[in-house]
């Protein structure tokens, strides 16, 4: 049982065995990742790219080895295209400030979609406000699918960038990113894909999809918090301004002049999250040992099973019915606020997310304040879903 690889899952919450269904927020960590991080601090801890001593060389080697693992995991051309960041949010802020902001003039626009996480909205608002430019929105339909034909209508001569998520964290929608990327490129516009909800569920090859930028977080793919990845094409990174200044991102510094380091180190100022990067490398090994194909197959079975079961419950409505979905189900119950659902489920040992999921524009679209959301990972089972369904029935009883 894969569940046994995750020590946290063996505990009881409110005297009930924990059923963890909040994986779109963050996944739990397998023993191998926990041990790898502990081993780093017990035996290897040292600053990277600096010392000539043994430990510094060892930690540098492990850190760079993780970069190689990421490069292979997403199929980039080289390790130069892999920048370690704190997470998806930092990756988007980095691209917004270092790549897009210098391109923007008054009257220009950036295109995002209606189903973006706040992390793929706010950084664009910050730079467009400063540059007196605007944000345009690719709309979605009632099923929670992007109306991609609208992208072509939205693009004009002042469009400087497109940024869209691969998978919606609230709706589970898998967006047709290849088509979006093609449309952007036909118009000579660069595009970024927020893959925070994708890489843990399905095979992603950045070269094949031809994304200019792609980013994701370690903690949603069985790795530690505080580490994430920005992928960008080498030629783009070469031309980009640094995001932060500091140690490790420079070749030489005098008070008159600084020569910046080569990519990707130019974008990794200061001592990075070394343990986090190494833990992420181990999480990639964990995924690859199981294989992403098997993870996807298991999760699709769970999604279909859960969708069928939850659809059958009276007065329960699933929000997000795209024909292509990852293992995320948002739902509402007539007359019961999602926070009350969340509290009752918690008392039954079931962890779900209740709220707007950092996607208030989606809530506004459906005219609801919030949803309850169950999201599945490799360690979840059909029994977990049966318990979820029972708990939804119990919730209805309490408030009947």
């Amino acid at each position, binding site marked *: 049982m894969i569940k046994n690889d995750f020590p946290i899952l063996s505990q009881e919450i409110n005297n009930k065995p924990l059923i963890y269904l909040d994986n779109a927020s963050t996944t739990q960590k397998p023993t191998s990742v926990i041990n790898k991080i502990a081993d780093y601090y017990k035996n290897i801890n040292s600053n990277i790219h600096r010392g000539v001593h043994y430990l510094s060389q060892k930690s540098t080697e492990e850190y760079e080895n993780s970069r190689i693992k990421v490069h292979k995991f997403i199929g980039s051309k080289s390790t130069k295209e892999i920048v370690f960041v704190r997470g998806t949010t930092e990756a988007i802020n980095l691209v917004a400030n270092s790549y897009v902001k210098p391109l923007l003039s008054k009257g220009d626009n950036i295109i995002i979609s209606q189903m973006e996480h706040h992390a793929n909205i706010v950084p664009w608002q910050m730079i467009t406000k400063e540059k007196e430019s605007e944000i345009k929105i690719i709309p979605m339909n009632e099923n929670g699918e992007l109306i991609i034909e609208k992208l072509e209508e939205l693009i004009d001569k002042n469009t400087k960038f497109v940024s869209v998520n691969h998978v919606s964290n609230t709706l589970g929608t898998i967006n047709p990113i290849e088509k979006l990327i093609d449309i952007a490129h036909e118009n000579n516009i660069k595009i970024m894909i927020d893959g925070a909800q994708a890489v843990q569920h399905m095979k992603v090859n950045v070269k094949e999809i031809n994304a200019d930028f792609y980013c994701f977080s370690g903690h949603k793919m069985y790795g530690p918090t505080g580490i994430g990845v920005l992928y960008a094409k080498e030629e783009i990174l070469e031309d980009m301004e640094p995001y932060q200044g500091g140690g490790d991102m420079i070749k030489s510094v005098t008070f008159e002049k600084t020569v910046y380091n080569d990519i990707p180190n130019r974008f990794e100022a200061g001592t990075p999250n070394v343990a986090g990067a190494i833990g992420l490398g181990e999480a990639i090994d964990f995924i690859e040992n199981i294989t992403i194909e098997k993870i996807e197959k298991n999760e699709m079975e769970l999604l279909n099973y859960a969708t069928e079961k939850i659809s059958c419950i009276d007065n329960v409505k699933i929000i997000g019915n795209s024909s292509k979905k990852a293992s995320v189900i948002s739902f509402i119950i007539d007359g019961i606020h*999602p*926070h*009350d659902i969340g*509290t009752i489920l918690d008392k039954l040992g079931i962890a779900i997310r209740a*709220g707007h999921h950092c996607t208030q524009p989606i809530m506004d679209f459906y005219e609801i*304040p*919030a949803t309850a959301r169950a999201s599945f990972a490799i360690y979840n089972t059909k029994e977990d879903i049966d318990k979820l369904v029972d708990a939804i029935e119990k919730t209805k009883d*309490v*408030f009947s």
Partner: protein
Amino acid sequence: MNDFDDLYMEVILDHNKNPRNKGNIDKHTNHANGHNPLCGDKIALDLIIEDNIVKDIKFTGSGCAISTASSSILTEAIIGKKTSEIRHLFEEFHELVTTDNKEKNNLGKLTVFKGVKKYPARVKCATLAWHTLIAAIDGDKEVSTE
């Protein structure tokens, strides 16, 4: 009794299902809107205050069971009370839902919210109506619990 009555006491469930004093007062003297951006809870209060005494209060809004029941029970608790008494009552109520301090002399039915203190994430649900009430008494129009 239900399995969840450390938080969802029957009185709370009843007031959630059948909220008292729901509606508007056209000729109100005081009014305020409250908003909890985190949960999306919204409440609007209309009051008639004469000689510093609340003569009538009605509320509208949408929110979770805790927030709806808190609004409903609050309206019943404060009609006929002086605004100074209401301020004191809010202090006691706030202590009830955030501390273990046992001495509550004036809360009456409001003590059904004592379970909230075990659920820090839900404190704002229970206090939104109260913050909005104090804003209305003070003549403020908007309050946001962030």
